[in-house]
C-alpha cells in the first residue's frame, strides 16, 4: 500500500514535469501552425514529420547544430583538461596560497552571469574575438572552471595518496600517475564534470547572443530564438527544432547516469 502511494506520487510528478515537453513534441508533429489552438488535445491531431524536414532543409538549423556541437565538444575537452590539471595540483601539491586560490574560485561564482556580459564583451572586442568561436570557447570553459575545479578537487582529496606513491615507485612519472591511475579511478567524477560543461555550453544563450552576431556562426539556442522573432513565430518549426536540441543532452544523461549514481555514493566505498 505504501509502495502504491509512492508510485502514485512519482507518477503525478513525472506527468507534471514531462507534460510541457510532451506538448512541444505534440506541436512539432502538427502540420499547421496551431500552437495556440483552443483544442489542446493530448494526442497529436496529425502525424506529420514535415516540420522536421523543413527545419533541416530550409533553415540554417544544420549550421547551428554543427556550431553548437563543435563548441560544446571543444568546451568540454578544454574544460576537462584545465579543471583536471588544476584540481589535481590543488589536491596533491603544496601550492603557495592554496586556500586563497580556492576561496577566490568560489567567490567568482557569486556574480550573476549577466553582470559579466559587458566586461566580457569589452574584453573580447579588444582581443578581436567577437563573432569568433574562440571567444565563446574561452568564456564558456573559463566560467565553468571554478565549479569543476572544486568538484574534482574534492574527489581527488578522497583518493588514498599511497596508490599514487606506489605507481611512482613502480615507474610512473607525475603525468603517468595522473593518466594511468588517477583518471581511471576518477571516471565518475570526470563524467559528472564533463556533463556539467557539456550542458552549460549546449544551452547557453545570453553570452552567445552577445558574442555571435553573424547568423552563420550562431548556436542552437540563438537559432531557436530567431524562429520566434523573424518568421512571425513558426511554432511548428520552433517545436521541432526544440525537440532535436533536447535529444543530445537527454542522451548524454542516460549514457552517463551509471556514473552519476556511483558518483553520488562516492566516498562511502573508499579503500
Amino acid at each position: 500500500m505504501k509502495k502504491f502511494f509512492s508510485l502514485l506520487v512519482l507518477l503525478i510528478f513525472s506527468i507534471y514535469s514531462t507534460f510541457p515537453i510532451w506538448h512541444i513534441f505534440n506541436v512539432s508533429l502538427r502540420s499547421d501552425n496551431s500552437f495556440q489552438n483552443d483544442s489542446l488535445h493530448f494526442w497529436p491531431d496529425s502525424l506529420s514529420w514535415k516540420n522536421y524536414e523543413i527545419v533541416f532543409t530550409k533553415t540554417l538549423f544544420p549550421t547551428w547544430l554543427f556550431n553548437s556541437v563543435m563548441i560544446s565538444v571543444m568546451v568540454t575537452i578544454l574544460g576537462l583538461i584545465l579543471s583536471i590539471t588544476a584540481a589535481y595540483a590543488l589536491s596533491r601539491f603544496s601550492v603557495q596560497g592554496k586556500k586563497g586560490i580556492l576561496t577566490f574560485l568560489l567567490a567568482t561564482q557569486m556574480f550573476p552571469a549577466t553582470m559579466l556580459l559587458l566586461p566580457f564583451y569589452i574584453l573580447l572586442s579588444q582581443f578581436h574575438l567577437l563573432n569568433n568561436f574562440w571567444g565563446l570557447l574561452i568564456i564558456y570553459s573559463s566560467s565553468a572552471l571554478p565549479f569543476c575545479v572544486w568538484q574534482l578537487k574534492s574527489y581527488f582529496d578522497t583518493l588514498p595518496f599511497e596508490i599514487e606513491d606506489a605507481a611512482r615507485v613502480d615507474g610512473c612519472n607525475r603525468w603517468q600517475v595522473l593518466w594511468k591511475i588517477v583518471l581511471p579511478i576518477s571516471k565518475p567524477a570526470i563524467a559528472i564534470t564533463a556533463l556539467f560543461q557539456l550542458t552549460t555550453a549546449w544551452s547557453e544563450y545570453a553570452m552567445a547572443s552577445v558574442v555571435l552576431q553573424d547568423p552563420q556562426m550562431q548556436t542552437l539556442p540563438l537559432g531557436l530564438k530567431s524562429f520566434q522573432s523573424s518568421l512571425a513565430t513558426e511554432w511548428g518549426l520552433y517545436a521541432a527544432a526544440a525537440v532535436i536540441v533536447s535529444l543530445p543532452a537527454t542522451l548524454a544523461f542516460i549514457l552517463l547516469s551509471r556514473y552519476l549514481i556511483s558518483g553520488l555514493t562516492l566516498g562511502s566505498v573508499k579503500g
Partner: protein
Amino acid sequence: MANVEFQSISKTFDQQNILKSVDLKIKSGEFLVLVGPSGCGKSTLLRLLAGLEQPTSGEILIDGRNVKGVQPKDRGLAMVFQSYALYPHLTVKENLGFALTLNKTPAHEMEKKIQEVAEILRLTKLLSRKPGQLSGGQRQRVALGRSLVKNPKIILFDEPLSNLDAALRSRMRYEIKKIHQKTKSTMIYVTHDQTEATTLGDRIAILNSGKIIQLGTAQEIFNKPVNKFVAGFVGSPEMNILPAEFLGHKNIDFGIRPDDIQIGDGTAQASFELEEYMGSHYMIYARFQGQLLRITRSQSVSKKTGDLIPLNFNMAKAHFFDRVSELRTNS
C-alpha cells in the same frame, strides 16, 4: 643488490621532529629489519629512501650515489605499502604486471614472471579479480607480489604480513627469506612481529623517538640491550624489570627475562598469583618485592594464589640499567 646509507637524516612534519639525525648503513644484499613503537617514523624512513618524501636535512646514498632530487622511479627499488595501495581499477594480474608494462618488458617474459610470483604467493586463481573482490590477506599478498616481479635492487617492506593468519604468515616469511637468498636484493623490512624480526633480519635496527637506538644482530640485541627501552621492546614475553635494591645496588634497575628465572631451589621468595597454559609452556605470574614477575616454565607449578615459591635468578643472564639515564651498566 645495492648498499644504502642514511647520513644524519632529519625529517620535520609541521614543526614536529619525526626523525632526528638518523645514521644508518645497510650493506649490499643485507636483510635489515626495522622495529619500533607505532608512530616512531619507520614508514617515514622508508618513504625518504623511496623518494616519496624529502629529508629536512641530511643525505641518502644508494650505492654511494647521493639520490637527492632523483625521482622514485629512478631509484631502482620496490616498496610494499602498509595500506597495500593496490590499483583498484586493475586486475590482480595487471597490478602485478604494472611495473613491467611501464619498463616495456616483452609480453612472454612478463607472463612468465607474473605466473612465477603468483605461484609463490598462491595468487594463481585470483589473477582476473579486482582488488575490491579480495580479502585483506589476499590484497596483502598482491602488494607483496607487485614488489617482487621487477627484481629490484632494493625492496622496502612496510609491515607486509600484518594481516595474515599465523599459518600463512609463517609460510610467507619462509618465502620472503627464500626470495632474499635467491635474488640477494637489499631488503629493509618494517615489522611489529618479534618472530619476523629475529628470523628474517641479518641485523635489526631499533628506532624510537626519531633515533636509531640500537643496531645489531638479533642475538646482540636480545642478549645485550643498550637501554631499558630496547630491553622491554625486544623479546616476548617481555623482560621483567625491577629495582635492584634487593641485590644491594642503589639507583639501578635489574632486568631478567622470564626464561632466566627458575622456580624451586632459590633463596628469593615470591608469592604465586596465577599461571597460564601457553601450549608449549606455562606462564607463571608471581609477586616479588611488590612487583609482578613473568616466569616461563615447562611444567605447571600446582600452587594456589598466595603460596610462597622460591625463585632462582640466573645472574649470568641478568641486565642492569641506570635508573636515571636508563642505559645498560653491565657488559
